[in-house]
């Protein structure tokens, strides 16, 4: 067994608990008297303490331990929930989060020093009525004890069976002067990560001798397939009492029952243990399970010596927790695939019609399979959203602006790869809203607005995409200031600005090098502009739009594709080359007479459905080579694509058809090629490039 295999699990679970703690802390702030919340938060701190203790992460364990003490007093109404207490709890939360993040990155807790925090927690505990705590402490102990009694009834019955093979080894060990012992280890009822705890017991014992056999078998212990206890046959130089002591030194061990095995089969008990039932009382069903040969003494002990705190270069893998139902669906689909495979093999003999049917069936299955795999990769945006209430709370305090955050659609799901990427852009947008958007309370009252500003964060699925909106009811975006700033920063010229409409002016915000922050705060205006947000979202094949009414607020809408790996695309020909256009960008396909095109400011446009449609000649953009006869045609095939509410017509030579394509990246060597979103492999094995229409206009 190796501790590192539990690390991922520990991190995953701790993160979930921390998320939960965060949201409860926020609730607690609003209703400090809610005992349920207090109990919940206490429970979480306790759980994390247990887990981290097991894993040997002492800093986390210490911090949570002190939190627990304070929470305990609060829960018993000995300390009132003041703002100070909540702030300190938030600080603890931050500390814990940092530790966990360090664990993710380096495998160690990191150097953050929380001694100060721990001391403050301690002083809170000390300054309050200490007298009564003892009483409460004992009360809970009694409670726990009651629970345990129920389970403890069969603690002293041994299930492990000394069979022939084991007996041989025991005899041999006896001749070498080693003492064979039968050990039953009972863990605390509420112990976390039992398998890891068992691992520690194994390790400790293996320092002194050899474990011959265990019940349940080692694999099952590793998989945590045991209740609160497990049994071992162990040979070493230690006698029963010393062994018992050694085991009980490990935390979260309720008790260890150690008996010496005499070669004749009888047993002698480590002194303090009360009457022990006879070994013969072994259920036959258990014997059946126990068909394993005695395990050979494990020679490897290196791992055990490894310092768990030593930073490891290894970072943890990205994981997704998957609903078992989704996996079942996948499994069913795969079985169907196998069936259809056999059917296809058969159709070789039985004619064309059958094979058509089979192919159609195959197509249905692959589509469902794609769907199912996609769903497995989906996680709710809640994972990103849950950090925002805290952020808004802190910002609102810091800036002295009253702000309320309204969130909706947290359950909306997006691809796992997207979830990590959208956090930063969203943070940026929310900060912007609060820093630039929402006015100061005085300014708001003078305008007749509610003194408290509102920020709305909404997520919802929209067809093949997911929308995330950040809206505020602040001052909105002043296009005059934008224009002035853009000119000042040399992004556009005076004359260009005059030609621009409201939308275009606001969109200047997304230009690189644009920053309106008049005073630099540590929130925004650090030179990282909205162009970074835009680039990030576009790298995920998404779009950002902004809408604003001066005086009433602004709204940023992020639109992301549901899936990243497989898309529907329109395949087109350009000269000798083939390209793929993602279907979700395409509005329609039409033909246009080349005579209908007119030139406006060096841009070819055509009047289409009473709107001017800019024309983009893809062959020119991509620098495609032509043979003579292909050059000019009277009637052109135009694919109308849309980006937000802008549209453009892309001229292509001919259409091949709609196809499901797998997106492959061009790799690190060819990054940042504009207009190209990736590549895909065609049926004939050749490569076609995927166009990103968003970058065409």
């Amino acid at each position: 067994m190796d501790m590192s295999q539990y690390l991922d699990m520990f991190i995953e679970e701790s993160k979930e608990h921390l998320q939960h703690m965060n949201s409860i802390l926020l609730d607690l702030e609003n209703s400090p008297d809610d005992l349920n919340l207090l109990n919940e938060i206490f429970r979480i701190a306790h759980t994390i303490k247990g887990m981290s203790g097991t894993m040997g992460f002492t800093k986390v364990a210490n911090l949570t331990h002190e939190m627990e003490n304070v929470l305990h007093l609060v829960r018993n109404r000995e300390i009132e929930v003041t703002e100070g207490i909540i702030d300190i709890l938030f600080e603890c939360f931050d500390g814990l989060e940092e530790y966990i993040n360090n664990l993710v990155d380096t495998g160690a807790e990191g150097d953050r020093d929380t001694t100060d925090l721990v001391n403050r927690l301690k002083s809170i505990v000390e300054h309050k009525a200490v007298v009564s705590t003892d009483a409460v402490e004992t009360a809970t102990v009694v409670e726990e004890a009651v629970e345990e009694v129920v389970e403890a009834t069969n603690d002293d019955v041994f299930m492990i069976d000394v069979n022939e093979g084991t007996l041989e080894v025991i005899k041999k060990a006896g001749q070498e002067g080693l003492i064979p012992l039968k050990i039953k280890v009972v863990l605390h009822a509420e112990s976390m990560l039992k398998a890891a705890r068992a691992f520690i017991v194994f390790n400790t014992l293996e320092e002194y001798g050899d474990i011959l056999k265990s019940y349940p078998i080692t694999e099952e212990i590793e998989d945590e397939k045991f209740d609160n206890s497990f049994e071992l046959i162990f040979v070493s130089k230690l006698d029963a009492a010393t062994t018992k002591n050694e085991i009980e030194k490990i935390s979260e061990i309720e008790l260890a029952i150690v008996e010496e095995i005499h070669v004749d089969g009888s047993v002698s008990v480590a002194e303090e243990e009360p009457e022990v039932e006879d070994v013969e009382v072994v259920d036959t069903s258990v014997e059946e399970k126990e068909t394993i040969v005695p395990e050979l003494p494990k020679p490897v002990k290196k791992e055990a010596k490894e310092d768990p705190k030593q930073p490891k270069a290894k970072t943890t893998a990205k994981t997704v927790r998957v609903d078992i139902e989704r996996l079942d669906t996948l499994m069913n689909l795969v079985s169907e695939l196998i069936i259809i495979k056999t059917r296809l093999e058969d159709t070789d003999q039985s004619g064309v019609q059958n094979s058509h049917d089979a192919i159609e069936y195959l197509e249905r299955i692959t589509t469902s399979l794609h769907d199912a795999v996609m769903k497995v990769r989906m996680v709710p945006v809640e994972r990103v959203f849950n950090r925002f209430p805290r952020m808004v709370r802190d910002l609102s305090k810091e800036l002295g602006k009253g702000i309320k955050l309204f969130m909706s659609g947290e359950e909306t799901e997006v691809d796992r790869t997207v979830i990590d990427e959208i956090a930063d852009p969203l943070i940026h947008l929310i900060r912007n809203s609060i820093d630039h958007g929402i006015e100061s309370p005085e300014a708001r009252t003078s305008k007749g607005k509610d003194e408290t500003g509102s920020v709305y964060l909404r997520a919802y699925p929209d067809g093949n995409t997911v929308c995330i909106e950040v809206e505020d009811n602040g001052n909105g975006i002043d296009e005059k200031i934008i224009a002035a700033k853009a000119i000042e920063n040399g992004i556009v010229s005076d004359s260009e600005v005059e030609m621009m409409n409201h939308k275009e002016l606001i969109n200047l915000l997304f230009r690189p090098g644009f920053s309106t922050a008049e005073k630099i705060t540590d929130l925004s205006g650090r030179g990282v502009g909205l162009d970074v947000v835009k680039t990030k979202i576009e790298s995920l094949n998404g779009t950002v739009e902004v809408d604003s009414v001066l005086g009433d607020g602004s709204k940023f809408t992020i639109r992301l594709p549901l899936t990243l790996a497989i898309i529907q695309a329109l395949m087109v020909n350009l000269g000798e080359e083939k390209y793929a256009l993602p279907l979700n960008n395409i509005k329609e396909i039409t033909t246009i007479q080349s005579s209908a095109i007119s030139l406006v400011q060096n841009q070819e446009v055509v009047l289409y459905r009473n709107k001017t449609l800019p024309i983009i000649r893809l062959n020119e953009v991509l620098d495609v080579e032509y043979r003579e006869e292909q050059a000019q045609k009277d009637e052109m095939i135009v694919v109308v694509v849309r980006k937000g509410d802008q549209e453009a017509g892309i001229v292509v030579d001919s259409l091949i058809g709609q196809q499901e394509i797998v997106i492959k990246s061009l790799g690190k060597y060819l990054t940042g090629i504009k207009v190209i979103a990736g590549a895909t492999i065609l049926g004939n094995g050749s490569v076609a490039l995927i166009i990103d229409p968003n970058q065409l206009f």
Partner: protein
Amino acid sequence: MSTIREYVIFKVAGEHYGIDIGNVENIEKPFAITRVPYTDEYIIGVVNLRGNIIPVIDLRKRFGIEKKEFDEETRIIIVSVNELNIGMVVDSSSEVLQLDRENVDAAPSISNNSTINFVKEIGKSDGRIIMLIDLKKVLGVEEMVELE
């Protein structure tokens, strides 16, 4: 430590070049290359090598030598540098050569010539001169790392 190293030898415009065999993944006959716009001229496109998209550069273009149509002898050498797999089109390649350290000299540092810049060392074998090239420079991987 052995002083003998193995090199894959290939020819471009009549000259012999060598790269450390450790950098070579495989050698392929040319197949469909898809042009990629907005790249340096010497990057001629991407190929599908068993399901992986791999960029391909033309060494003739990289060395500033005039273009030549692909023929029977043309090969794409797939190399691996900094965990990147990249294909290099060469005129021909059919030899693996062992070179003793003694037969390898540092490259003459006279250059304004672009080809020579890519040459790290000069190997001698049976009276032939073999230019051992600096893959990172040839592929432009070095510049990339600096950019990051």
